[in-house]
């Protein structure tokens, strides 16, 4: 170690004494003869320091053999561990020297800053932001790439790993962030696919909430408690401390913990702690600067895959430490960024994102070796117009056809045994949704004698949530409204409920308009909402559907016992099936919901009714409904979330949800006589991120689906 530190010291003096990073003999280094790459990452602390060393190692190796076309690579760094990410992002975005930025660190930061960089024609390469939403939002833009595997892929591996240990149940605790949301969304999805039950799922926004959440989740005694930490190891330590105090017989599953080969979590004390130590006169004690916790045996871990020895040795030489955290991904990010710059500098009339797409999506030939000479060969060929495969620390750097994500996720699965982290390999399988469709009983149905008589058509279409962040819910409802109206249904037979705060939100760059597809499908200007703003509440929904209460002078559902009715609602759903109203201050419980439907039947509001719910856990919302002639179609099963679908980086907001998007697309493309049964089959297959459910009760599914959307078969 002493020798390594000494080496590091020498290297640091050579490499980092100035604000630029690496200059090696044989290449020129004037201001105009340097290839600058921005960095927006934490560069100190337990996660940041190894990444900083990895960046420097990659730059050193690139420059060692001549840089890019004879120009050295230099990093312009902003350390987000000790700085405001948004302010730093603006600085890098406006820096004319920079075309590619490595970062940001978190998925939230990426969503917050992506638009700034994209508007300034800069490309992002994140080594760490792994949320699945990033792939869904930015694939095919060419502007956002990452060298870490997407969590959408990783979550399937986690559940396969747990299934391999014969587990039957899991519980889940995640941070309330974009990163955490991926696991909150996808672990239950893959649990369905692997036949494992989910006993509970919680989110935490503050570390102080971890012990109480752990206690609640452990009470159901799941076989594994999957704990997702947001950043530093202190959250894991908090979770382990909480579990130790409980009589919990299961085990914990950790994702990317910062551990060494003996499963030790090391925390460096912050300045505040050291100041306290200084006051007490203890601050000079070395053992006051760090604390260490060891993971218990049988802990399962998913983190970086095994590294080749040569890379570990190279890293240890510059760092004095073994690679940890996101070291290989950070190293690879420099290679990807440099490759983009090699192409961009050769074709400066094309944009950086064009350069990225042209070399990352169209790779050909064998992999070039991960050596300084291999990098040089790659950069030279890239400058000549080729797209060779560069080998990084995680293997060949090949991306999915849509862009953004590595084609093959890179990970390692491990278990703790006798105080050591042991490899516990799970081969990656490119899973698609395979869980068998839940065929509704007697799905062929027996057409009723009066099936041909559909009566009057009425629709109640509502988005129950408010606020800019929930843009997609109102866009969904307005899109369904537009579709129904396009079928020729008069406005007086459509009751539209939307808060209508989106069109004039200050963040809406197109005032008055709402889109379901960017630049293509405007759905607000032609709509005529019947209820907007604070008039929308739980009681009002009840009264409108039953034609009673304080809204008698307003449009109400005036259908009769011969009518065909569509009830479409979009909003947030909570675990347990509550449908949220407004900001969640009111909730429609599964019991409330079944009661409303039952009353509608008693009031003879329909002959047949299709209820469509676009919300998380919507399968649970309808589980108490047992009313004749009511068919229930939900976006997700009872213990999983539904997912958003189309992201508008200009507005920095999701425009639609996948289920509704597929519903409208399928209806528009379908034969007019496609039965409801077939519509459901299509939806189940095409919605990749959740398991839509259909409950038919005593109803036939042979009725043409369009009948329930105002169409004529």
């Amino acid at each position, binding site marked *: 170690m002493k020798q390594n*530190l000494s080496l*590091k*010291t020498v290297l*640091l*003096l050579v490499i*980092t*004494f*100035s*604000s*630029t990073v690496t200059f090696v003999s044989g290449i020129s280094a004037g201001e105009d003869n340097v290839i600058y790459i921005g*960095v927006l990452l934490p*560069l*100190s*602390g337990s996660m*940041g*320091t190894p990444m*900083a060393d990895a960046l420097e190692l990659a730059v050193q190796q690139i420059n060692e053999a001549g840089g890019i076309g004879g120009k050295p690579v230099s990093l*312009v*760094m*902003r*350390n987000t*561990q*000790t*700085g*405001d990410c*948004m*302010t*730093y992002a603006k*600085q890098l975005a406006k820096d004319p020297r920079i075309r590619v930025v490595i970062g940001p660190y978190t998925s939230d930061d990426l969503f917050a800053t992506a638009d700034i960089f994209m508007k300034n024609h800069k490309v992002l390469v994140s080594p760490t932001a792994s949320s699945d939403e990033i792939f869904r939002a930015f694939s095919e833009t060419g502007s956002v790439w990452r060298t870490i595997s997407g969590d959408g892929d990783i979550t399937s591996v986690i559940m396969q790993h747990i299934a391999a240990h014969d587990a039957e149940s899991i519980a889940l605790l995640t941070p309330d962030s974009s990163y955490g949301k991926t696991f909150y969304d996808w672990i239950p999805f893959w649990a369905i696919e692997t036949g494992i039950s989910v006993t509970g799922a919680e989110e935490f926004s503050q570390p102080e909430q971890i012990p109480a959440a752990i206690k609640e989740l452990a009470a159901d005694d799941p076989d594994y408690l999957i704990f997702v930490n947001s950043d530093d190891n202190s959250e894991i330590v908090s979770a382990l401390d909480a579990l130790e105090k409980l009589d919990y017989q299961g085990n914990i599953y950790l994702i990317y913990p910062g551990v060494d080969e003996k499963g030790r979590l090391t925390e460096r004390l912050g*300045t*505040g702690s*050291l*100041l306290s130590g*200084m*006051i*007490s*006169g203890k*601050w*000079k004690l070395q053992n006051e*600067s760090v604390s260490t916790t060891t993971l218990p045996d049988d802990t399962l871990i998913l983190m970086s895959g095994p590294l080749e020895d040569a890379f570990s040795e190279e890293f240890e030489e510059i760092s*004095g430490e073994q690679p940890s955290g996101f070291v290989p991904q950070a190293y690879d990010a420099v290679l990807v960024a440099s490759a983009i710059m090699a192409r961009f500098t050769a074709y400066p009339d094309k944009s950086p994102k064009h350069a990225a797409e042209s070399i990352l999506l169209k790779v050909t030939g064998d992999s070039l070796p991960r050596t300084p000479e291999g990098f040089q060969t790659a950069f030279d060929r890239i400058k000549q117009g080729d797209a060779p495969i560069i080998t990084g620390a995680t293997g060949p750097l090949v991306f999915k056809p849509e862009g953004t994500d590595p084609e093959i996720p890179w990970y390692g699965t491990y278990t703790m045994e006798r105080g050591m982290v042991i490899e516990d390999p799970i081969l990656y399988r490119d899973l698609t949704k395979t869980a068998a469709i839940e065929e509704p009983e007697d799905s062929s149905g027996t057409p009723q004698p009066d099936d041909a008589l559909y009566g009057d058509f009425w629709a109640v279409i509502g988005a129950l949530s408010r606020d800019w962040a929930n843009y997609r819910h109102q866009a969904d409802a307005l899109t369904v409204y537009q579709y129904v109206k396009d079928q020729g249904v008069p406005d007086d037979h459509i009751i539209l409920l939307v808060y209508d705060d989106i069109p004039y939100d200050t963040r809406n760059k197109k005032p008055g308009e709402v889109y379901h597809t960017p630049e293509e499908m405007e759905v607000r200007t032609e709509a005529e909402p019947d209820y907007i703003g604070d008039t929308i509440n739980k009681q009002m929904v009840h009264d409108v559907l039953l034609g009673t209460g304080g809204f008698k002078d307003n449009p109400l559902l005036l259908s009769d016992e011969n009518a065909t009715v569509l009830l479409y609602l979009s909003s947030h759903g909570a675990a347990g099936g509550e449908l949220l109203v407004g900001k969640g201050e009111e909730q429609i419980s599964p019991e409330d919901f079944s009661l409303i439907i039952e009353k509608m039947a008693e009031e003879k509001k329909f002959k047949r009714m299709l209820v469509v719910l676009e919300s998380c856990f919507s399968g649970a919302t309808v589980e108490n409904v047992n009313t004749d002639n009511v068919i229930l179609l939900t976006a997700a099963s009872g213990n999983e979330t539904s997912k958003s679908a189309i992201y508008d980086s200009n507005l920095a907001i999701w425009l639609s949800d996948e289920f509704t998007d597929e519903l409208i697309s399928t209806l528009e493309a379908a034969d007019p006589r496609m039965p409801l049964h077939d519509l459901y089959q299509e939806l189940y297959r095409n919605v990749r991120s959740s398991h839509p459910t259909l409950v038919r009760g005593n109803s036939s599914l042979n009725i043409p689906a369009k009948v329930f959307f105002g169409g004529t078969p």
Partner: protein
Amino acid sequence: MKISSKRDMRPVNSRKSNWKRGKHYPDISPFTTIPMSHNLALVLGFVVICLYISPVLAQNNTPLYCGVILPLSGDLGTSGQEFLSGIELAAGEINTHRESEYHVQLEVRDDAGDAGTALSHFKEMQASGIPVVIGSFTTAVTLNMAKDSEQSESTVLIAPHANGMALYGISSRFYQVNTPVINLGRFVSEWVSYTAERVAILYIDNEYGRSLVDGMVSDLAKGTVQVTGTEPIPDDADIDKLVQETLDGGPDTVVVAVYDSRLEEILTSLADAGYRGQVVLTEAGGMRNLASNITDSLSQFSICTISASTSLVQGAHTNRFVTAYREKYGRDPSEGYAGYGYDSMMIVYHAVLQGPANGTISGYSIRDGLDTIQYYGVTGPKVFDEKNAVGPAMDRWVFKDGKFELMSTSVL
């Protein structure tokens, strides 16, 4: 030479203090926290206390001529006046002390912050036989005088505050009341090594700044802390650009070694640029103004000062000084330089008391006295090392709740 041979006969370390290196004493009361031997501390303390509680009767007739060369006008005039006020307060106390047989007579000259002017005044004082001169403020202005002091055996020069490395050991007749900046570098480096991983240093581009940076870089190279950049600040610096260049290295700690009005601009620019890490200031002189002028900016950081000098140490001795100063000048001396002026004058007096029994005051006798005194001043302990500089004693101040608070005083 007589004096030299006498010095040569003494073992080099014989006048070293017993104060231990590397200890840290959170309680900064001079009689309980400074690790000199208890007996010595008590005796010294008793002597100091007796000096100030004795009845005041002027019976002193032997003149003690003392030159003072300070920037009393110009940009540094305010600081120079603070030094002078402290010197005059000390002189007044000596002159009115019943036991004192000496009467201080000050010869005060204004160098206006100009090295040439200062040297000219110094030569005049040497020529007129003044045995001891206190001056000047900065290293740059003091340097030529310090060099010149080696040329004249009759006059000793005492720098009340200047501590650039170029001064350290420059002349056998030059003494530094403030510890050399290399010790500041050690203190800052030590703190940084425990609290940071990536350090950038912004420093004033002069002897003081360069000395500090050289020392820090050298110290930090022994450990694992990475120096991400060292940025000299020229007179015409574009501060915002300089700050951006400083951040380019991704530091988690920025050391700012600046003592002039640009400090405020630098800190504001760092805050505006989004920096939220640790800031270490090496000068504490402007703390009060910073706290009141740019409170919001300071609140963005974890900021502390590890200054090149102690401010006033706590204790009864200092309390009496503060009270007397307030009564005489109507100002608080706590964060200024008056304490260093006061201690410089008192050091001269105690050196004279240590000198030959016949009471003859000369450059020789003052040097002898300076070489042996162990004086505990209002700015901390004053014992000169083999290169005529006092040992390190440092304050740490932390910005908290809108103001700087003294966190600790430490000795290496």
